[in-house]
């Protein structure tokens, strides 16, 4: 009896061990490296070959509201932003070719070169509306576990690889289950947080044969003035190969 009990205990423990092993193997974070998770999260916010989408930006800055609708074509570090509304800004264009930036508007005979410091609107940096490529732009310097609204996450501390990245340092919450970025904090070179963002994924796209969630909303909040909020809605995403001509300054003005 005693011997049989022992045997059952061993079998039960064996089952328990196998069960625990199974659970841990099924957990995504055990299968993926942090870098792979970051790359998967990027796929939900952009496309290496190119993307076109419409963006609606609603900004509240120092109590003033502003709304803008943009059409964005992006590929890697290149991005073309065409303003659709409001009417008096319609046709204004921003071309980002790596770190070279040009601004053109109807009536202005030729595009004006501008510096990367000149941001688009509100709290949003130009990089926020382009295709996201954190996997290439940043290196992971630290990881830890965390939660966003009870959803288990890996918190990735990212450091810019070079000056082409929009931010110097980013703290990025990536869902372990859904493999999408849920939250980010953006830091200055001195280590001070200057804004934070949350992300929603109501759109969906087909990547290979699989469907996956795709970004639909980003809410950026200033860390200095909490009332300053910029909401970016992403709609009509089309993943496509974008030609070099789309980012050519000779074709910018019509």
């Amino acid at each position: 009896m005693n011997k049989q009990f022992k045997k059952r205990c061993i079998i039960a423990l064996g089952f328990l061990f196998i069960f625990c092993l199974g659970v841990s193997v099924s957990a995504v974070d055990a299968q993926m490296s942090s870098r792979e998770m970051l790359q998967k999260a990027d796929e939900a916010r952009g496309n290496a070959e190119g993307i076109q989408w419409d963006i609606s930006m609603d900004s509240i800055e120092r109590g003033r509201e502003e709304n803008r609708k943009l059409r964005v074509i992006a590929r890697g570090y290149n991005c073309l932003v065409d303003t659709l509304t409001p009417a008096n800004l319609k046709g204004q264009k921003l071309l980002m070719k790596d770190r070279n930036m040009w601004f053109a508007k109807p009536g202005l005979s030729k595009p004006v070169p501008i510096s990367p410091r000149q941001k688009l609107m509100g709290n949003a940096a130009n990089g926020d509306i382009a295709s996201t490529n954190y996997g290439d732009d940043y290196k992971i310097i630290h990881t830890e576990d965390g939660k966003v609204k009870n959803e288990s996450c890996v918190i990735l501390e990212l450091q810019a690889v070079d000056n082409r990245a929009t931010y110097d340092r980013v703290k990025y919450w990536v869902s372990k289950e859904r493999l999408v970025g849920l939250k980010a904090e953006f830091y200055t070179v001195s280590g001070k947080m200057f804004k934070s963002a949350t992300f929603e994924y109501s759109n969906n796209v087909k990547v290979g044969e699989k469907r996956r969630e795709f970004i639909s909303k980003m809410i950026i909040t200033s860390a200095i003035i909490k009332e300053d909020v910029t909401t970016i809605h992403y709609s009509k995403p089309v993943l496509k190969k974008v030609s070099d001509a789309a980012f050519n300054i000779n074709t910018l003005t019509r």
Partner: protein
Amino acid sequence: MIIPTYIKKLFSIMIFLFIAVLVWWPQIAGADDAGDAKSPDLQQRKIDAAEPSDPSCIEKIKGCFFGDLRILTYGVVQKYANSSQNPHNDFIQFPHYSANLEFRPDLRLELNYLELSVKPRAKFDFQIWQEGERDGETKWRDDWYVNEWRVRLKPVDAFFVSYGRENLQWGPSFLFSPSNPFFSDNGRSNPYLEVAGMDFGRLVLIPNDSWTMSAMVNTDEGRNKGLGLEPFETTFAFKIDYMGAQNYASVILSRKDDTGALGFFGGWTVSDSFLLYTEGNFTKGKKALYPVNDVSLLRAILPNTPAINNFISLLGATLKRLYPDDSNIYPVLLFGGSYTLESAGTISLEYTYNGLGYSSEEADRFYRIRRIAARAFDFDFGGIPKLVGQYLLLQSANSGLKFLRKNYTMLQYHQSDIKKMLDLTLRWTQNWDDGSAQFLGIVSYPMGNHWELFSTGAFNAGNGETEFGAFLDYQVMLGLKFTL
């Protein structure tokens, strides 16, 4: 067969109205305003990017048309400078006031392999003179024209062929664009006035992300008819552009009137806030008019009377294309930089060395000719000298030089969205050789989503025998722009 002017005008008006109506159609069909952007239905619905629903035929056609309509109304107040170039405002005859109304529809059809665009214009103005021989006169004018149009074929993604009337501009500089062999005005001193288009044929090849090659020919001056006395010459140009990660550069080889020129521009994004750039050209010989102590031509063609001989002797010099066959190379070089402040304002500084400009001796001779021409024009010497004076004043106003002298500096401050309301540009241009200067201000204030209040002002400092003091003391423009 000569077509009467009124038929031409009627035809232009009909085309303009037809196109203006076409502009409205896509606007109404695709009514898309800021309000829509906030629609929760639009924003929250799930969109399948991989398999978009098949658009209807009407939507497909609608998606190929793009139209804008801008209506500008503005008033201009200006005061002529009483210089030898424009004595008592009798030569150029600037109106003191003018009220203007402009309709500017832009229409575009974009298909996979073909793009058509047209920018017809209707302009009405009312002018009032308060100085010179036209003092007290008023005049209504209307002008119907197509400022730009273009047919562009895109047989493959990386190759474009186009022909049309265009405002072809490039280069990073603000003051002017010396690398551009076609346009002397880059449109940046008053963005509310359009630069008149010229006719171009173009081939553009984009072999990869970094390089672009363009071949272009300027076949006609189009609407860009200056007051110059030289006939139009076809210009050919070949341009190579390079775009790197944080720099860019272009070289432009051009040929006009059997003379070659080498233009260039380039820029470097030094840091997030600091840009450096340069632009320039090298030309063989000088095509502009230069003062020369030679009146033999005048003596040969004018009647031999004591009054005329007296006038020619007094003049002692004329303006001539002195160095067209000169084998020397003359540079025009512009160096600039801009710095964006934390407040988002941008300061730009440019220095220009104009190797084609007049030396001090040439400038003295130039102003002496102009003084005597002005006196002749003012009846001091009678009929024929008055005509000669008029001709010389026309020459001096259109010497073929963008800038008369050699050394210039431009300092500019620009800031957009000041307090989320105001765009502001302030610019100071200094001629270091004669001490004259120009101050320029451009302000715009959006009023809602469709209206914009704007004002520009140019104030010139310098006496009548300086570059900036020759034409206007000041010019102020105040207007309202409506965008549909």
